[in-house]
């Protein structure tokens, strides 16, 4: 009980402090942290909890982003209404990608999803879809204003809107992964044959998990598109997928709370590396990444969990 109160206080602080204190750019950075956290959460459900490795989740992020942009641009759908539609589209695509995944174990699945991530920018640029996607130029969309005459500027409203959606998505994810279905997901990851003997339908569980995962990352793509107010094929290169994977591992693959740390990592560490060395930010980024893996081999999630247990033990004495 006490933990859920702490989390509630944390969320309120997270909503109030940046909105009241942060300037436009920093607030935008915070918005992107929330967006990335949801994207990594999708990957954590699939890879961390269910054990299906995806190196191509940037593809679902792109599909979500483009779904929102196209709906707003071509059909004048209000931005908030694009989210449920994008969720359905991405869940559908995720389910379909999940079907061949049933026959491909571990590393082969990783390669297949990687191929998807490689293909996506080129598909988005293709002449066939140019009328909708805007081709290489991409699409510019309008930033939403705060509704009901709330005294908030666009950046503030965007941050609160994104955070609100994320909180709902996190609650659903925690419910899903802590109950019967979550146990089944982990069981399949740890021993598929035994899981099947316990009555878990592997094909059904894995494809549905894939759909949920793609849905989360896709909605993150939609939120990201709304926040950036622009989509273009080259924003969704393979590197984005790898970045999500880095965030996942840095946060601690199977940890829900760790996804937030992972998002902070992928949003701020590249900037930090850039400040340290203008000439070789990539090298600095690499060193930070390696140092982190040395200091927290279980990811930030595992590290914080261990720290928490130590605090509880000390408090108990």
């Amino acid at each position, binding site marked *: 009980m006490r933990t859920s109160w702490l989390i509630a206080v944390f969320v309120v602080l997270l909503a109030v402090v940046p909105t009241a204190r942060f300037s436009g750019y920093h607030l935008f950075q915070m918005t992107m942290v929330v967006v990335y956290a949801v994207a990594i959460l999708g990957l954590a459900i699939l890879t961390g909890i269910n054990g299906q490795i995806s190196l191509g989740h940037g593809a679902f992020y792109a599909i979500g982003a483009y779904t929102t942009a196209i709906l707003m641009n071509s059909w004048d759908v209000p931005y908030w209404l694009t989210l449920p539609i994008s969720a359905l589209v991405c869940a559908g695509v995720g389910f379909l990608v999940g079907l061949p995944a049933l026959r491909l174990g571990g590393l082969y699945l990783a390669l297949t999803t990687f191929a998807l991530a490689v293909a996506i920018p080129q598909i988005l640029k293709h002449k066939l879809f140019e009328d909708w996607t805007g081709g290489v130029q991409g699409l510019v969309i309008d930033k939403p204003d705060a509704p009901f005459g709330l005294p908030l500027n666009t950046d503030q409203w965007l941050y609160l809107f994104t955070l609100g959606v994320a909180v709902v998505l996190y609650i659903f994810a925690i*419910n899903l992964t802590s109950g*019967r*279905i979550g*146990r089944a997901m982990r*069981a399949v990851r740890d021993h598929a044959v*035994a899981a099947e*003997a316990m009555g878990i339908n592997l094909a059904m569980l894995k494809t549905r998990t894939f759909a949920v995962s793609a849905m989360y990352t896709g909605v993150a793509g939609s939120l990201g598109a709304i926040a950036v107010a622009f989509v273009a094929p080259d924003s969704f290169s393979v590197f984005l997928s790898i970045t999500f994977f880095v965030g996942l591992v840095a946060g601690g693959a199977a940890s829900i709370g760790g996804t937030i740390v992972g998002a902070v990592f992928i949003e701020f560490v590249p900037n930090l590396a850039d400040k340290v060395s203008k000439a070789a930010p990539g090298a600095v980024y690499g060193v930070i990444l390696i140092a982190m893996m040395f200091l927290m081999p279980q990811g930030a999630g595992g590290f914080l969990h261990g720290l928490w247990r130590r605090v509880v033990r000390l408090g108990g004495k």
Partner: protein
Amino acid sequence: MPPVDDQPLLRITGVKMRFGGVVALGGVSFDVARGQIRGLIGPNGSGKTTLFNCISGIYRFMEGDILFEGKSLANVPRHEMANIGLGRTFQNVALFRPLSVRDNILVGAHHLAKSGFIANALRLPSVRREDAAAQKRLDDLLDLLDLRGVAETPAGALPFGTQKRVELARALIGDPKLLLLDEPAAGLNHSEVDDLAVMIERVRSHFGCSVLLVEHHMNLVMRVSDKVAALEFGLKIADGTPDEVRAEPEVIRAYLGEPDPELKH
């Protein structure tokens, strides 16, 4: 129509299985009655594990049939086995190692509940009810199998003997009509085997389920089984009470080898 009570819980009739040119099972038949502890013994390579895998759906047998409550298991998908009442353990323990003992056992109750992804994400009242029901069954088992002290420990961190009890609990929480035990004594020391024998009898009296015990360990099988079948080279060489099977010359020969004519006097 014969009354249901006459029907054996499990009936194996003429099951054959070949791997390439090797005949692993050459037509094996026997029954497991309701409430019975049935032993299945045989030396290495006699086909008992193959038969076990045929029953649990890992292999699809080529000829003959296996009937469970009168219905063929030939085309039952593996994930349906738990649902129709077949629980099992694995030869070398197949636990979900990072998960706590509690979660490991609860996975065994998966098929008793029906709630799906959406109901779970929203944590609907039906999900809470299912959870409460599973927790209650879990509580009973933690006491019965003496696992309460390790309920929150990751299963992979426990000693082998304890892991076997966790596996047994995981099979039992699903309320099986027939419990398939694949070499439960393997890797256990002498006193652990004694505990296991007590445990198997307790399981039967507490849950009223039948047990098919596939085992290498003669002593254990002879001690707890009501009836025993013996296999050698994929064929049944004896079937009866433990005393009858122990006295069977074929069984003695299979286990101890041919008497050496040189040593005869």
